[in-house]
């Protein structure tokens, strides 16, 4: 599209339009709206395609037979349909066990992280103590360090404690919560100061202040924080991979690699079937919590 700022654009008649006089021809809102809509929809289509095509391929690959997967040119629809990939997953790896491990690890980590995040954020935003800002900067600083850097020292420490292949070995080192502290603290500080003061004057102690006043005004942020934590922990790969080599405590992503290894990296059908199964619980959690998040966002728009 020719930009109106292009200098060498003698062919653009609308630039000379003012000389013609009163017969101005402004572009109507409808035209602009239509062009805008087309651009908008193209943008959406592109975004959706970038996200959806790989997902689509995971799903159809999980339903393809081995030769079908390697067919050239690639096919966009499984032929023949091979739903047996799914039963194969159930039979050849202990999917149930990995699933259970994932649920345990994610649940414990989410509870611990949300609790620690909320409590530390509360302290950093509502309590006055010396070094408060310094503590907050330390928390921020820990966000700046990629956890791959600390993973070797963590590993040697935890392995020395004999925590390999235990839930504690996976969970405890992952329970640090800098991001949540950061997010919740900033949210708490954005709450109307008078309401906190009103609660203080009304004699609210710590518990009632947190659960009756602060958290009810923080649902959207808290739900977002919880959701991010759940997704992150569910998909956590590197640390659990180092910590576990059996189905005793390994979560689903590690289980999927066992599946891969079993098949000598070739039989992608069952691996993709496993991937689809592993992502379903997170999709459900998303669908449930998403509504809460939106509800909270609109309710927060009106301050009491």
């Amino acid at each position, binding site marked *: 599209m020719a930009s109106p700022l292009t200098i060498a654009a003698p062919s653009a008649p609308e630039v000379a339009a003012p000389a013609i006089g009163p017969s101005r021809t402004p572009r109507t809102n409808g035209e602009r709206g239509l062009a805008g809509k087309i651009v908008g929809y193209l943008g959406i289509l592109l975004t959706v395609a970038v996200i959806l095509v790989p997902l689509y391929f995971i799903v159809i690959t999980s339903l393809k037979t081995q030769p079908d997967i390697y067919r050239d040119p690639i096919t966009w629809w499984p032929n023949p349909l091979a739903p047996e990939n799914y039963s194969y997953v159930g039979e050849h790896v202990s999917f149930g066990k990995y699933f259970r491990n994932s649920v345990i690890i994610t649940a414990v980590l989410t509870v611990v992280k949300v609790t620690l995040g909320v409590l530390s954020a509360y302290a950093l935003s509502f309590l006055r103590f010396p070094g408060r800002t310094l503590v907050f900067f330390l928390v921020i600083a820990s966000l700046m360090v990629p956890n791959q850097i600390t993973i070797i020292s963590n590993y040697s420490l935890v392995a020395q404690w004999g925590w390999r292949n235990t839930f504690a070995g996976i969970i405890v080192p992952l329970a640090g919560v800098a991001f949540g502290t950061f997010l919740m603290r900033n949210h708490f500080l954005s709450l*109307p100061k*008078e*309401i906190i*003061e*009103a*609660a*203080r*004057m*009304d*004699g*609210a*102690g710590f518990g*009632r202040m947190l659960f*009756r*006043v602060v958290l*009810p*005004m923080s649902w959207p942020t808290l739900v977002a924080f919880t959701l991010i934590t759940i997704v992150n922990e569910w998909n956590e790969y590197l640390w659990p991979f180092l910590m576990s080599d059996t189905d005793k405590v390994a979560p689903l992503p590690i289980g999927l690699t066992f599946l891969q290894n079993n098949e000598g990296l070739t039989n992608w059908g069952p691996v993709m079937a496993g991937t689809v199964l592993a992502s379903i619980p997170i999709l459900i959690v998303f669908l449930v919590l998403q509504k809460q998040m939106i509800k909270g966002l609109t*309710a927060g728009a*009106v*301050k*009491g």
Partner: protein
Amino acid sequence: MATVEFREASRIFDTMSRPAVNRINLDIADGEFLVLVGPSGCGKSTTLRMLAGLEPVDQGQILIDGVDVTDKRARDRDCAMVFQSYALYPNMTARQNMSFALENARMPKAQITEKVAAAAKMLELEDLLDRKPAKMSGGQRQRIAMGRAIVRDPKVFCMDEPLSNLDAKLRVTTRSQIATLQRRLGVTTVYVTHDQTEAMTMGDRVCVLKDGEIQQVDRPTFLYEHPANTFVAGFIGSPAITLIENVEVSGSRAVMGEGHRMELGMDPVLASRTPGRVIVGIRPEGWEVLSEDDGSTVPLRVDLIEELGSESFAYCTPLMTADSPVTVRNSRVTVRAGKRQKLSVGETIHVRPGPDEASFFHPESEVNLEFLEG
């Protein structure tokens, strides 16, 4: 119910600059309605928050009912506060908002219900009890905030500009409601406002603050008629008082220029307390408007007229002779004209102060001469 005392109380935010509240001494009687008033940034809200326990007292003491509460937490002071933004808990219904403090105090449920019902009846908000703040109008929220303070039966009510978010009409009705309610409950109340109409109409006494320091504390009418200094004179009263500076006094008359005098009716006792020149303050209603110069008046040119129906105010430029040393602060003289007095813009009028209408201030300290020792 309680007395409140500020003893040399200061709040210092930054040691490098002037204290926000500077060594305030103030005694508030039991059941009194005291209004703190002043321009923005004068420290009135900070003073209130120091009393409520939301702001630390850096120097001095605050006593409630004779007990030093300087180091006590807000929740242990038994003060209830009504905030400018109402600060209702958005997740709770009006009933829950009002009972929150009582629940915190572990009051039995039946008693809470009873108290909330009584307060709701008093404020006529029974219909609103199960509604959340988001579903209420500004006036309704304001009443809930009042209710939340009332149910606690506190020793002191602290109110921080509770009417400033209401529309003009509602503000007038609520103003009288709060004043009536306070008299009925008899709870010591400290009320912060920047609106001097509220200050004049609501308070038993008014405390005028400027730059963290108390300028004057007195009954509203006394404050209006006998302002302690030019600041109080200018702040209290609307439209503002006219301050004429550099006035030489000769006898009871002011010399406005060569051969041009204005009758002031100044008490010779007061005249003896000045070095010769004074600042004269005359309120808009203190002027007598004459159609012709009789030798004791000042000519004014009318620039603007505000018609309020029952009265009108003329904003005028004084027409001084060129050699006159006299200046008028803000170069404006405000004159109130009665309903029947028709003035028009551009017209020249002749005015003089009515008997006993002028206040006199010291030219340097700007303190009212009445308050100075002879």
